[in-house]
């Protein structure tokens, strides 16, 4: 036995013309927590998918506990003691925790026997790692944090000695994340090896023993965490100095542009997704909405953009009750014409049509603009000219308007959406997760652009699950939990701890 649980030697993987991993090597010590950090598209997930048997490397070797292995599928990975907790949980909502854990490892034709054994085993695992999961709870009733622990249990139940976690804190409150980290430390004490994929520097600093920094498919550094600091890591990741803070002057808010009164949304099951919201967004300010995802922020954005019909309340835009406007157009189109632009949270599902070229995406939502058509047909010239303008203003790469937008990186896709929405010169910009899946270089650019807009006197409503982003950009911060606004904090007095508490539903 060697001291390394996992060794990757010279791993390369190519997708078409893209080299996702190029000669990647790393050693992960047994019983350590190892971070893999890098921008989106740096090749972290590809690498882990190779380790977990989803992909085969084009070249390179993998050693598990010093033994050369070939991992052809995830079953082989599991047999080698490698477990993975995916970013999107692979659970059956209507099954109990126990049923979910046994799923795929039922142990024989008759369920009963295997179930009883599993229950015993589960009890022990629960105790060993203080996971605090009730085996008989229905998974759908559990919060995200608990569901994640079910995923961890699942991997452990299958005998994982090496646990890979892919961006595990993306969906957690700070408190839940702390709990997760306690569990990970307990795992480490029991001699398990943990691999943590993340792009959050703070987490790496808090919990890992060693870090591998990846950039553009290659390893740019294998370091011991204790020897580096946040700034140094960020520097390695991006390859140049970045400012994590956004320089901005104090806001000079003007008249209220958006005035929301008693806004409510109840779904068919009677669940209150939005519960009597009251707030304003004034010209020249950025109002940030903090909250763990799934607490009503997405619905709020869709209601304000005219995509969802609220069940009660009033939305006033520049003094006008929006519900009373009649235009014969769908609301989303009518409101957009009035100057409400919307950068949706989920750009690949809503903000873009991935199968379309960049120039077609550059007019999505604005396809009715008179300047784009001549005698009923699109003027290709006008479309291309507009797209080229976006490309040069927002430094979109590659700068080919005919390229399918799905082939662009996340950051460049987001720039297309942003360029399009800003081009319309809106008075109110609704923006959700502006930098989700966007690399650090582009984050900086997008943040600057938003502050610039604010300084031009636009009203901006920002929804983000990234607290750092909310803190960096907002002039005022509203916190949402369970469909309600649980508190308002001014930017100066806000910090992650107080916001975290509000996000957990503790009212001020």
């Amino acid at each position, binding site marked *: 036995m060697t001291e390394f649980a996992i060794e990757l030697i010279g791993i390369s993987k190519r997708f078409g013309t893209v080299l996702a991993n190029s000669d990647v090597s790393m050693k992960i010590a047994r019983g350590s927590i190892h971070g893999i950090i890098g921008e989106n598209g740096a090749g972290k997930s590809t690498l882990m998918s190779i380790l977990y048997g989803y992909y085969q490397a084009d070249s390179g070797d993998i050693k598990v506990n010093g033994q050369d292995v070939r991992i052809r599928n995830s079953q082989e990975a599991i047999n080698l003691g490698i477990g993975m907790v995916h970013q999107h949980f692979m659970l059956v909502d209507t099954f109990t925790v126990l049923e979910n854990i046994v799923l795929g490892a039922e142990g024989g034709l008759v369920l009963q026997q295997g179930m009883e054994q599993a229950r015993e085993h589960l009890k022990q695992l629960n105790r060993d790692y203080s996971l605090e999961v009730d085996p008989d709870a229905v998974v759908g009733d559990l919060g995200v944090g608990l569901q994640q622990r079910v995923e961890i249990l699942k991997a452990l139940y299958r005998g994982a000695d090496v646990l890979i976690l892919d961006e595990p804190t993306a969906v957690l409150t700070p408190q839940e994340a702390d709990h997760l980290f306690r569990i990970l430390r307990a795992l480490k004490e029991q001699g398990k090896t943990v691999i943590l994929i993340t792009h959050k520097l703070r987490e790496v600093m808090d919990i890992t023993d060693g870090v591998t920094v990846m950039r553009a498919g290659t390893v740019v550094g294998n370091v011991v965490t204790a020897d580096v600091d946040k700034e140094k890591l960020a520097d390695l990741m991006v390859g140049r100095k970045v400012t994590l803070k956004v320089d901005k002057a104090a806001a000079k808010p003007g008249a209220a542009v958006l005035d929301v009164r008693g806004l409510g949304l109840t779904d068919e099951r009677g669940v209150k997704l939005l519960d009597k919201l009251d707030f304003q967004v004034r010209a020249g300010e950025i109002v940030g909405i903090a909250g763990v995802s799934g607490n009503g922020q997405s619905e709020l954005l869709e209601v304000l*953009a*005219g*995509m969802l019909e609220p069940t009660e309340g009033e939305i006033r835009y520049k003094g006008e009750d929006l519900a009373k406007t009649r235009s014969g*157009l*769908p*609301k*989303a*189109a*009518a409101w*957009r014409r009035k100057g409400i632009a*919307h950068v*949706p949270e*989920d750009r690949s*599902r*809503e*903000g*873009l*049509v*991935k*199968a*379309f070229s960049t120039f*077609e995406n550059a*007019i*999505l*939502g604005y*396809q*009715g603009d008179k300047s784009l*058509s001549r005698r*009923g*047909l*699109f003027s*290709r010239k006008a479309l291309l000219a507009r797209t080229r303008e976006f490309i040069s203003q927002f430094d979109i790469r590659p700068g080919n308007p005919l390229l399918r937008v799905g082939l662009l990186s996340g950051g460049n896709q987001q720039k297309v959406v942003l360029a399009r929405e800003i081009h319309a010169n809106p008075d109110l910009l609704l923006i959700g997760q502006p930098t989700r899946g966007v690399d650090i270089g582009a984050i900086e650019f997008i943040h600057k652009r938003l502050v610039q807009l604010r300084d031009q006197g636009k009203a901006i409503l920002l929804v983000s699950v990234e607290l750092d982003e909310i803190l960096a950009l907002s002039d005022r911060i509203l916190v949402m939990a369970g469909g309600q606004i649980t508190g308002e904090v001014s930017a100066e007095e806000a910090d992650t701890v107080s916001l975290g508490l509000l996000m957990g539903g503790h009212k001020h």
Partner: protein
Amino acid sequence: MPRWAQLTVLPALNLMAALLVTGLVTWFIGEDPWECLKLLVHGAFGYGEGIGYTLFYTTGFIFTGLAVATAFHAGLFNIGGEGQAYLAGLGVTLVVLAFDHTLPPIVLVPLCILAAMGFGAAWAFIPGWLQARRGSHIVVTTIMFNFIAYSLMLYLIGHHLIEAGSQNPTTREFGQNAWIPALHQVAAGMGVTLPSTPLNLTFVMALLACALFYLIVWHSRWGFQLRTVGVNESAARYAGMDVGKTIIIAMCVSGALSGFAAINELLGSTHRMNVAFTNGVGFVGIAVALMGRNHPVGIILSALLFGALTQGGLELSFEKPVITREMIIFIQGLIILFCGALENLFEPFIAGLFKRKDDK
């Protein structure tokens, strides 16, 4: 794999595979496959009349292919082209029976076309509305509507539209005012002699429809809307498009296009309506659209293939009694199987070849 290869090499391979299997079957029933293939190709393209008939069948297939493609761009699988063409025939017949002795061709024919489009669209509207507003799956409803159309027409022709005193389930012959001129007649007017075939001016309309289809789908606002709804409904809703309305209109356009298949057959060729006049044109349209990848150029080419198969197959069955009409349908089925269902059968292999070439 480069796009040109996707559009040429793969369909060609699929077609070859279908022909190979057909050849085996032909050999199995005791015929010489090579000779049969020669007969088939000669029947379809070997002489003037054959070409005329091939293009006549192609005309109908182009329209139903475009119809399926229109719905497909909106993300809808319209299986109901057959029923829509059938009902369009009813619209045409009603107009003709009412006016063929009073209105001049210049008024009557456009009126018939409008009726065909209207009836076809109306028959597609109901499944479209049900899909958009009630979520009833379009595949199920359009299949059902084919049956309803068939039964309805059987009843109407058998009990009301049948020629007085006739035993055949068919209407009386249409007055000449309702005939769309055949191409050989038009050519004769210009001093060119073409063999006498049912190929008529509807063929020209089919080519125009292809050009219009291209412009509208890829270069107009509505086409943009159509395609957005088809590939990403959430994005369409985000962009302020009325998804339900787009679906309904797409279905209506699809039905209207199917209606032209009835025009081609009734006003261009038979000049009367009989019970089985659609003869599967709507179903072949599905294969045509699939194989033509919902692009007008592809649709013209695959419609030509199916037109040739229909015509060449008929000739073949005259020459070789062992090879029946069913055999030809069998071949069409194989082509659909290889080009539609097994579309990507050879893709990994061919993609591998191209990859190796790139690496060098």
